[in-house]
């Protein structure tokens, strides 16, 4: 069987302190993975650091937000004919050592999209603050109901995709509230979605793009986006599956 080409998609915004380590860790873990860092118009030297560590860097000409940045990576993967993509954050919260865990269902041909969830296993180590935990749970329930399949973590930025997933997300990726809505888009489009337990680290540098103050506002906006997204029609992909 032909060797499948793997790409790691790493969105980064002002992550010069962490990005080098992230790239090194992926490469040290599996040197056959091409690492693509999407620099969403950082003010610091994120792009140079990533390049110096051997990543391919896509530099956006202005800040377009996490969703648009990630989609740039999917478009790159599509254009360059990658078979499998794994997406992880540029702040170092996703451990490269877990890449095989998240890739396994895709490589086995069992799933088109694998979500690295922090809550599959109830005894998982990750305990977010109360408000965030509630938000995550509400989104998970909502997406589960609207998408017709139980998911436990819709805000995870740690996912793996096969070619079909890459094609879908390159064409159709929500820009505003990407992770939550993307999960719904995938389910609605008929992708086979699986989830595996992963542990995430606390970020070491930089700060989360979601501050506590904005959390409630965020929840309302995401629910609205989910509602609208569920009214939309998506191409059913299972017909295209060979």
């Amino acid at each position, binding site marked *: 069987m032909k060797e499948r080409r793997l790409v790691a998609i790493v969105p980064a915004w002002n992550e010069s302190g962490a990005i080098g380590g992230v790239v090194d860790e992926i490469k040290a873990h599996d040197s056959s993975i091409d690492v693509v860092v*999407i620099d969403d118009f950082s003010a610091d030297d994120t792009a140079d650091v990533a390049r110096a560590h051997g990543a*391919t*860097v*896509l*530099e*956006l*000409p*202005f800040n*377009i937000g996490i969703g*648009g940045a990630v*989609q*740039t990576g999917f*478009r*790159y993967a599509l*254009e360059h004919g990658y078979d499998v993509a794994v997406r992880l954050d540029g702040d170092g919260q996703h451990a490269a050592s877990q890449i095989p865990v998240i890739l396994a269902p895709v490589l086995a041909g069992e799933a088109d999209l694998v979500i690295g969830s922090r809550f599959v296993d109830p005894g998982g180590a990750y305990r977010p603050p109360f408000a965030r935990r509630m938000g995550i749970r509400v989104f998970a329930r909502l997406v589960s109901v609207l998408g017709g399949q139980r998911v436990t973590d819709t805000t995870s930025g740690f996912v793996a995709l096969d070619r079909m997933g890459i094609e879908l997300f390159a064409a159709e990726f929500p*820009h505003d509230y990407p992770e939550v809505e993307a999960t719904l888009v995938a389910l609605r489009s008929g992708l086979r979605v699986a989830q595996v337990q992963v542990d995430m680290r606390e970020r070491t540098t930089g700060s989360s793009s979601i501050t506590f103050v904005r959390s409630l506002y965020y929840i309302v906006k995401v629910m609205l986006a989910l509602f609208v997204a569920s009214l939309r029609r998506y191409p059913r992909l299972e017909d295209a599956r060979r």
Partner: protein
Amino acid sequence: MTPVRVSIVGAIASILLILVVLELVRGRRLKERYALLWLVTGVVLLVLSVWRDGLNTIAGWVGVTSYPPAVLFAVATLFILLVLLHYSTVISKLTDENVDLAQRIALVEERVARHSEVDEGDAQVVQTALVESGADLTTAPQEK
């Protein structure tokens, strides 16, 4: 009944609006496709200002009995809402196109950077080969 003054002021304001929009289009500062809704607004307001019986009749239909010109305000407000909504759709489309462009630029720039790197590498290889073969690099090759 609609006071005559309201009709006159309404008509003048509508005509001004139409003239300003036409002038902006003429001077290419406003695209026709965005001017259309404004012109319709101006014409509808002009008609309702001048056609006093019409305004009174419509006011009767919608239950405005005490002061028919209120309908004029209501119609103006409705059209302004339409224009704003139209602009929201235009902004959304521009935003999508902007993101698409930014993504394309990032992808193309990466491609260009990679190719120019290769080109420089090639030039280096050629030069080394020439030096090794003892070619005289001080005389530039003849341009065709």
